[in-house]
């Protein structure tokens, strides 16, 4: 059976409150479309999936090959980014003819029907970071940042089930499996930079140039956010998707951790959207879930996996000693003894 549309986000337990806000706000405005969470973590009975605003899938049950290697190679954040193409492919091949991926830190503010309506005519629909040269004091700096991070934002991706899309998703998955890091000097920026290839690689790739879709810190000043009652507009268009990339509820007056000097107060009427989002996160249990442990943060015997472990493992390439499951600690099975995180400290 094939159903038309679904939406999905990806998070580990510590970010469950963010996923809840994304799911609940999506369902409020799009009640007929099912919403999934792919948990890049183990549930560990911390929450009851039946009482959540999403349908739960665990990352290790959606057919990602060598998922332990992926989970070991990348830290919590990068791992959740790296599974994006796998998640889209899974939902498209299993059941749905069109899927919307939303990154965990999203607030849906209006119906997305006008976008889903366009999806059957396209393979992919992407949103650019910029719609025109920035009007900021240093537009070239801003354009260079975008060129090096990727011209399309990885937080909103519409995909429909076409042969082109499935081929693209496999290609994208291969690249994120290999290189899901930030090394902008070498051209890499997590999973996002690979989207630059999309208009060349797939037929009918639509670029959504609607200012109300995917508003975030990178284009906030261009979008002129206005509030009248419960209606929020961006550059005159209904604001449908607002993104809080890098927002930290511990610093509610910071727009994003990426530019700590920018304050929410200075964002005009958008400040109200931030404070609304802040309250929603608190209501969804942010203060509690933030402390929930990350299952891929420890070896099987409970000792922590350090950043140095992950780095060395990632750099070891396809060498013969690479174990099937690097988290294992039984003698002769894992890799911990071969990785030496103490090395390099003087």
């Amino acid at each position, binding site marked *: 059976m094939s159903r038309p549309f679904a939406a999905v986000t990806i998070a580990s337990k510590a970010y469950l409150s963010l996923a809840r806000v994304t799911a609940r706000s999506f369902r409020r405005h799009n009640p007929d479309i099912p919403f999934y969470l792919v948990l890049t973590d183990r549930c560990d009975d911390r929450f009851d999936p039946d009482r959540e605003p999403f349908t739960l899938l665990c990352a290790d049950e959606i057919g990602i090959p060598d998922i332990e290697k992926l989970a070991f190679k990348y830290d919590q954040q990068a791992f959740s980014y790296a599974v994006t193409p796998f998640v889209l492919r899974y939902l498209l091949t299993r059941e749905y003819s069109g899927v919307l991926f939303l990154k965990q830190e999203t607030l849906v503010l209006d119906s997305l029907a006008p976008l889903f309506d366009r999806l059957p005519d396209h393979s992919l629909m992407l949103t650019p970071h910029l719609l025109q040269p920035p009007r900021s004091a240093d537009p070239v700096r801003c354009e260079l940042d975008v*060129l090096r991070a990727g011209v399309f934002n990885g937080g909103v991706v519409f995909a429909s089930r076409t042969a082109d899309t499935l081929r693209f998703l496999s290609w994208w998955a291969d690249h994120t499996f290999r290189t899901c890091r930030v090394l902008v000097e*070498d051209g890499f920026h997590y999973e996002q930079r690979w989207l*630059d290839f999309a208009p060349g690689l797939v037929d009918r790739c639509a*670029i959504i140039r609607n200012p109300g879709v995917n508003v975030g810190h990178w284009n906030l000043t261009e979008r002129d956010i206005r509030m009248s009652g419960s209606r929020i507009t961006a550059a005159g268009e209904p604001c449908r998707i607002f993104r809080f990339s890098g927002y930290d509820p511990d610093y509610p007056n910071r727009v994003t951790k990426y530019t700590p000097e920018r304050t929410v107060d200075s964002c005009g009427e958008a400040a109200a959207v931030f404070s609304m989002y802040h309250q929603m996160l608190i209501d969804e249990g942010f203060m509690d879930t933030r402390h929930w442990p990350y299952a891929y943060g420890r070896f099987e015997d409970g000792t922590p996996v350090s950043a140095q472990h992950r780095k060395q493992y990632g750099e070891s390439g396809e060498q013969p000693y690479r174990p099937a499951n690097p988290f294992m600690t039984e003698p002769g099975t894992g890799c911990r003894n071969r990785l030496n995180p103490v090395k390099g400290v003087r």
Partner: protein
Amino acid sequence: MNNLAIGTVIAPDFLAFARVLGRSIRTYHPDIPFFVLIADPQGESAAADEPFFRISMEDIRGPDLTSVLFKYDMKQVLTALKPVLLQHLLDKGFSSALHLDADMLLLDRIDDCISVVQSHSLTLTPHVQTPAGDPARIALEHQLLLTGMYNGGFIGASRHPQTSTFLTWWSDRLRDYCFDDIHAGFHFDQRWLDLAPSYIEDCTILRDPGINTGYWHLSGIESGDDPDRPAVNGSPCRLFHFSGFDPENPDQLTRYYPEMDALGATVLRKLYSTYRMQLNEAGLAETWNSPWAWDRFSNGKRITPEHRYSYQKLIQHHLDRSNPFNQWGLLTLLNSLRSSRRALRQRLQKHRGARHT
């Protein structure tokens, strides 16, 4: 009026290339006028029987061009002039303009491609059109992340307010930042084109690998139905791009990747030798060594890359906007100051290093 012109920008050393491209346009599309902007102050070098219409630097000279001609080397100047050429052709009255690099060759009619260009504000061709996973392709894709998704050899533009806005923006960026510093996000004109689908509503991506086929398609190149004409992934090559072709090293596929093996693909060997022959007939030997006109100060001294670099720094800080070609003394002085400062710094570092060991 719905009409299209093709144009290219060259220095005099590329005259034979432009002639060969012009003749191939005359063969397959005799109805399409072909314009060549020759970056050279001498105006009379195009004879009446050239297979193109000449645009001279006077026709397009803008207020900042002197500065651009000094701060950039030849390749930078030629690429920075692409949006200027396109806007010039649209201003001349053509409803569409197609920029092709001069080292391209038509192998067949391209009517479908022309009508795509005519029906969109902007038309670009991507380097890769199909996902693949072989090591050579992965290496190429890693390179493209730094050099740009769309090939700068093919840019179609049609008259539309958004197109002019885009061409002005592109031209502004190239006036100031036509650098080749791939790790910082610059690759001549090309990397900026990645923003085109963001900035223009009606930007279309032409995904036929037979249009603008180049060394980046090497893994997909095969023999076509016509023994003289290769194909890529089943599409016959109709517009070939000899990017990086070096007349002094004609057996090499491209000077950008000397290790790439052109001779492995027999069908390419034939195409390359035909192209070389056509270049020779078009006067390659007489034109190839033509000097770049803007490589000397007004006092005859040669402009070095260091001079250009000093000048870039100078205008970055808005220190001097007077004609740099008259500034040999100043720029040479700055260079010597810079290098002596560097030497002093190195000596100090060595000294400090010695103290600590």
